[in-house]
């Protein structure tokens, strides 16, 4: 479907790149922000460190969303026979998972930082932190869903 100009793989490659780059930005922010919170509260309550690893793991999962979509897009790239339709669809898929991953990682970082610091002082807050983190993580999942739906278009 559609024509096959020589520059259409550029958009596909940019889709794979943006999927990985933006979700990595979100994951890095989430890891750094919650990691700083963990380091700060560890001095007061070292026994709570392993429980507080949860925001860091969830930030890593956001990076994995980006990796999955980037691998899927890169697997479909070809030199010839790659239509402009495919190129733009892959660009859309990459941008959707990447930018939602960026936002989700930002949210996970901020909530994780506040959550681990609060849990150190009041252990009953842990369940609340988990619930809020799940809602933040699911934002990245929405991006992944749209990316997969776009990617599967013929």
């Amino acid at each position, binding site marked *: 479907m559609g024509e096959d*100009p*020589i*520059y259409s*793989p*550029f958009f596909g*490659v*940019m889709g*794979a*790149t943006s999927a*990985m*780059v933006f979700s*990595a*930005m979100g*994951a*890095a*922010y989430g*890891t*750094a*922000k*919650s*990691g*700083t919170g*963990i*380091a*700060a509260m*560890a*001095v007061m309550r*070292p026994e709570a*460190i*392993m429980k507080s*690893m949860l925001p*860091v*793991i969830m*930030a*890593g999962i956001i*990076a*994995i969303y*980006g*990796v999955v979509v*980037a*691998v899927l897009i*890169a697997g479909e*790239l*070809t*030199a*010839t026979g*790659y239509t402009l339709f495919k190129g733009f669809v892959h660009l859309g898929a990459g941008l959707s998972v990447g930018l939602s991953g960026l936002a989700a990682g930002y949210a996970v970082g901020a909530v994780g930082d506040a959550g681990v610091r609060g849990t150190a002082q009041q252990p009953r807050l842990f369940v609340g932190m988990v619930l809020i983190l799940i809602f933040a993580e699911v934002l990245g999942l929405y991006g992944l869903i749209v990316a997969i739906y776009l990617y599967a278009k013929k």
Partner: protein
Amino acid sequence: MLSTTTYAMNNSPSYGKYYYGGLYSLLSFILTVIVLYYVLTGRGERIDIGWFLSETSPYMWASLGVGIAVSLSVVGAALGIYTTGTSIIGGGVKAPRIKTKNLISVIFCEAVAIYGLIIAIVLSGNIESYTQSLVDTDDVIKARNWYAGYCMFGAGVTTGVVNLVCGICVGQVGSGAALSDAADPTLFVRILIVEIFGSAIGLFGLIISVLLTSKAKMGDKN
């Protein structure tokens, strides 16, 4: 007269905070004027992204990819080392025992720069020359070379920017680890786990770059 001059010198407002906003506004104004000039004088179709992508040489894309891969990775590693290094030195004033163990954080940041170096070397090994006459006649070889150029650019940008953010992240966490280590020596190893998660992000970027590079093949062969 002198008193007003000294008053102005001591209390003059600083306009430096408008630097980035001013630069961004100037650039977007120039871009808007250029685009409007083309559009309003009936030459709108000359703004052609497709023409730009197909007329630029794949050597440009590939070389930009190589340059961006190593340079942005090194910037990320440098920012990380800057953050974690200052914290190690600062914390080490009261607790000098932390200085040797916390070099691990610095090494994690350095590893980010090495990832970028590896990808840049692999990418630059992929750059090969093609004969122009063959490219002008054979569409398949032209498509293959142009595709290789785009892939290498994408691989380079992926590695560069992902390592940039990974280096900043590892530096931040390393800084926290150094200060926690200064307070309580048993904490360092557990906070190192967070640094490992941060390092994994750089590895993801490396995987995607290698995947993109493996598809790129420049040269004369079909």
